[in-house]
């Protein structure tokens, strides 16, 4: 939700909250965690490690950082990176997530070469530092993703370098 001032996001729906990290000690527990994720975590934003939970692993808060990356991408592009990729390729959503198969619309083969597409206006181009935030959140291995503190520092740094674009209105 967005607060009435338009600048303050309000997180809601904590029905999916779980104590974390969750050590997965047995096969039956792995299945339980996987079922729980299937029920409560929305698929296009769900981290790969929740699709195929293996016993002997630990599911940590890195799953939220992944979802944050998907969310930022969706705000920039209009939908989750994996929803977009699965629509482009016709492949299944879960395969795209598990293969970490995604790209920015102006990158890779598709983006620019679509016939009949007008050239991008300068304000439609996603700036490199913002893309970098998304890329780091969407690293396949949970331990490679930034933790929430590192992410906050990175985002603050990016904001500090940006020109004023009317955010203070």
């Amino acid at each position, binding site marked *: 939700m967005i607060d009435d001032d338009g600048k303050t*996001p309000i997180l809601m729906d904590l029905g999916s909250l779980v*104590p974390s990290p969750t050590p997965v000690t047995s096969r039956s527990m792995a299945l339980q965690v996987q079922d729980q994720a299937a029920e409560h975590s929305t698929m296009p934003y769900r981290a790969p490690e929740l699709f195929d939970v293996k016993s002997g692993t630990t599911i940590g808060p890195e799953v939220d950082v992944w979802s944050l990356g998907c*969310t930022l991408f969706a705000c*920039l592009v209009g939908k989750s990176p994996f929803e977009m990729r699965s629509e482009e390729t016709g492949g299944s959503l879960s395969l795209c997530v598990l293969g970490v198969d995604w790209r920015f619309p102006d990158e890779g083969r598709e983006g620019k070469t679509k016939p009949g597409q007008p050239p991008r206006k300068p304000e439609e181009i996603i700036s490199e530092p913002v893309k970098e935030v998304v890329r780091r959140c969407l690293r396949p291995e949970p331990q490679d993703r930034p933790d929430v503190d590192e992410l906050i520092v990175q985002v603050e740094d990016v904001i500090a370098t940006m020109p004023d674009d009317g955010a203070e209105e």
Partner: protein
Amino acid sequence: MAQIGSYLADLFYSLGNCMVCFPSTPQLKINGRSLKILRLLGEGGFSYVYLVQDSSGALYALKKIRCPFGQESVSQALKEVEAYSLFSPHPNIIHSIDHSVASDRSDPGSKTVYILLPYYRRGNLQDMINANLVNHTQFPEKRLLILFLGVCRALKAMHQYKVKGAPGGASSHKKAKRVREEAARADQDAEEQAMGRRGRDRDTEDEEQEPLVDDEITRAQEGVAPGETRSYAHRDIKPGE
């Protein structure tokens, strides 16, 4: 003349009846607070969210969660209230204003949970994404990142939650615990009511009611000293939240 009199009385009576049967707006009472239901904002599996107005004209979002016995437990439904209490106050996490658990008159084993939440007229990020898609507009990057930073800060409060620590301290912790106890009592009551009616089905029901230990929020803090970190993961971050 007397006939016309009684005819008029009849007419008024039936009109009056009509008014009772079809009130202009449906009303609801939550812990003594009268709420007018204005419209449905959204719905999910067992839940509905309504836009409601109290007698002073203030707007709220009211979440109604049906808990038929054996399918959805009050503990699960009130889990979000428990979580809101635990992290409150935080500028980037929603707080619940009030909640209540009602029993179904015809089936006391069925409970309905009402959660009163603030109403945000701007909607959520998904609504803004949709508006952008329709209008072919985009978020100014800086504005978007400022919003994103707020979400990161909300997550920080969860990932690095300290038992009985900032910002709400022990009182938030106590409140969350009370919610859990209330939910457990309601589930207990639902079970007794349902058992009373079903009698011998008990053995099969017991299996379904096994609690997911993994789910517990305040219980997960047992054995963690005050001030120590007990992390939580949200597990469902998306623009629609």
